[in-house]
């Protein structure tokens, strides 16, 4: 019975994640940027912008310059999470891709980095006055949720191992629209429940920063306003203004 509930839950969560995030991305992409507002010094070429964004996305360049502690914790968390996620590909591929096989041991250590990073961010949120001031309940809950996912995952790896073959059968089944038996284990149910919840809230929470980052005009625009005229669709529809100076206004 619970297997069916979880199967439905994951179908719904996947649809909401993909459709919701897709809709947000479409909305951002379709919203015009009326003016050129790259924060300078900014690249003068498209290639330069790709490099700038690469440094931002891969190394959090601006954060590195602005706050070293948040950068350290943020890097530990995000890179740790990336490796952990890649490691989880083994539940969705048969046979498992060679490079997924290869990173299995790293992925295990990465989970510690991830939790350490999240813990650091939570610590700062609670103990740094300025950050506590700007935090809403959802900001704490979001960190706790991801910590919860990571800790239950690590629990199943290190404390009370579960039948991961059955779990893999369950997910491979879902990918072929079959519902197989999910091992009834509290760790599994908690871990997967929280993951599904995270997927559902992704497009409607601050987690949307992940795709949103690619649409910030301050970082993604090329600094070439003098060379190329930038004009948004709505601005081109504004009523024309007179050419030349009206006779009665001449000095």
């Amino acid at each position, binding site marked *: 019975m619970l297997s069916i509930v979880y199967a439905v839950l994951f179908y719904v969560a996947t649809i909401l994640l993909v459709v919701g995030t897709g809709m947000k991305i479409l909305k951002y992409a379709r919203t015009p*940027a009326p003016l050129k507002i790259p*924060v300078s010094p900014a690249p*003068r070429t498209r290639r330069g912008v790709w490099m700038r964004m690469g440094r931002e996305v891969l190394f959090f360049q601006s954060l590195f310059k602005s706050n070293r502690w948040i950068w350290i914790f943020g890097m530990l968390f995000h890179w740790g999470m990336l490796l952990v996620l890649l490691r989880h590909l083994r539940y969705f591929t048969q046979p498992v891709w060679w490079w997924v096989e290869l990173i299995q041991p790293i992925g295990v250590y990465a989970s510690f980095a991830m939790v350490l990073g999240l813990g650091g961010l939570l610590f700062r949120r609670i103990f740094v006055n300025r*950050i506590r001031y700007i935090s809403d309940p959802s900001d704490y809950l979001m960190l706790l949720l991801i910590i919860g996912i990571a800790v239950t995952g690590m629990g199943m790896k290190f404390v009370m191992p579960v039948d991961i073959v059955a779990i893999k059968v369950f997910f491979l089944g879902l990918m072929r629209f079959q519902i197989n038996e999910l091992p009834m284990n509290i760790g599994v149910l908690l871990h997967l429940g929280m993951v599904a919840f995270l997927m559902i809230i992704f497009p409607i929470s601050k987690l949307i920063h992940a795709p949103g*980052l690619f649409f910030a005009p301050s970082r993604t625009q090329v600094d070439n306003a003098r060379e190329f005229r930038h004009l948004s669709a709505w601005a081109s529809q504004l009523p024309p203004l007179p050419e030349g100076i009206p006779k009665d206004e001449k*000095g």
Partner: protein
Amino acid sequence: MAPHDMNTGDAPKIVGDPFKMPDLECGASVDTNTYKAAPEHNEPLGFPGELLDNWQEVAIAKIGELAKKNRAFQVYLDTCVKCGACTDKCHYFLGTGDPKNMPVARQDLLRSVYRRYYTYAGKYFPWLVGARDLTREVLDEWYTYYHQCSQCRRCSVACPYGIDTAEISMAAREILDSVGVGQKYCNEIIAKLKRTGNNLGLNPKALRATLEDLEEDLEEETGLEVKLPLDVQGADILLITPSADFFAEPQIDGLLGYAKVFHAAGVSWTISSYASEAANFGMFIGSYENMREVSWRIRQAAKDLGVKRIIFGECGHAWRVGYSFLNTLAGPFDFLDQSYPIPQHILEFTMDEIDKGTLKIDKSRNDEFVMTFHDSCNVARGSSMGRKEGGQFDLPRQVIKAVCNNFHEMERDTTRENTFCCGGGGGLLTDDLMDLRIKGAKPRMTALQQVTKDHGVTHMAAICAICKSQFTKVMPKYGYEMDSILSVHQLVSNAIILDGQVDPVDED
């Protein structure tokens, strides 16, 4: 935080850390409010004269409209994760300790309302995400704190997502204007510009008289007829400069510097009485339409006078509009000479002349000054110069070093893209905000005090009319003479020796 009593006129000697973190003091600057606009200031800009009866409805709809029209606004409202990297970056926060002056908290004043009306979480779980109804108190809070932001973008540099509080602050002012709550300073000035062509309300006759007086000064100084031409048909270059250059010190000395450079370069140039203002306050209030109208005058004047090039004088926000927006707002400029950048900055022109060797320069004429340079926020983070990335930092320094022997940099975290706003930008250069201006200048002043102590720096140069006016007023509060702030082209003016120049005989 102990209140800094800087209004006493006693110069506080606070050589210290420009980044010294204040203790949070809620409401520390809630009573610092700028005068509201009267109906006669709002209406010429197309805004309701007074607070609308259905203001709440209109304001909420306006948030939605702006989110549809401006990607930056939409994305910035959605993507903040409250990481806190920006919290210690604002000079007004560092100066006042009011937590609502932390960039993210300032954004949240509006974001909380956006969430309440436009997001799922805010509609159904407002307590969870800090969403709140738009009440009269919230509107008042917007007015207070969005007029304690100089839109300098220092926080945007710090943000991992590039969120630019300036965009939020401009949008907030646009929303306030749309319900009839404008700021007197900005709106009165824009209305004045629409009547007279400049922020001062100088009519062409007065402007001509002023320029003639300055020509006399130049003749006394050099023994030469150095012209400040007005409305000359067929001139090659149209100079667009802030109107402060016509009447305020040290801006005037900058204007005289441009005139000498043009004279030495042997180009024909003119000022226009119709477009006698570089500054564009339409940007401060986030109004695309008003900004476009103000910019359009430059196009009209350029066409009417039949010039080939447009050059901007020293003005920070003007240069952001000029460099980044002018082509959008008033282009295409296909009727101008395409072999020059459109528009060009006076520093680009002067640097070219220095490189060409057209200018005869005696650096020792600036030996009485030990200089440093204040990067103006909107030039630093909203524009560029020259052919290379970062030219907006390098060109002014190259020019200063070409005309001065003594130059020292302030701390790196307070210069170039990390520069602090002077404390008077973004429409806050008004006497009713003097307390805030003094506090906001503190990080810059502290960094300056440091180089004064270490290197004996006596003067600071800037390329922005607002910076210059602001520092003239606030530097005395920090132990400097009011004339310790100089125009970059004032230094050029001092050092340049024109062909046939006869120095006045010292009568002392």
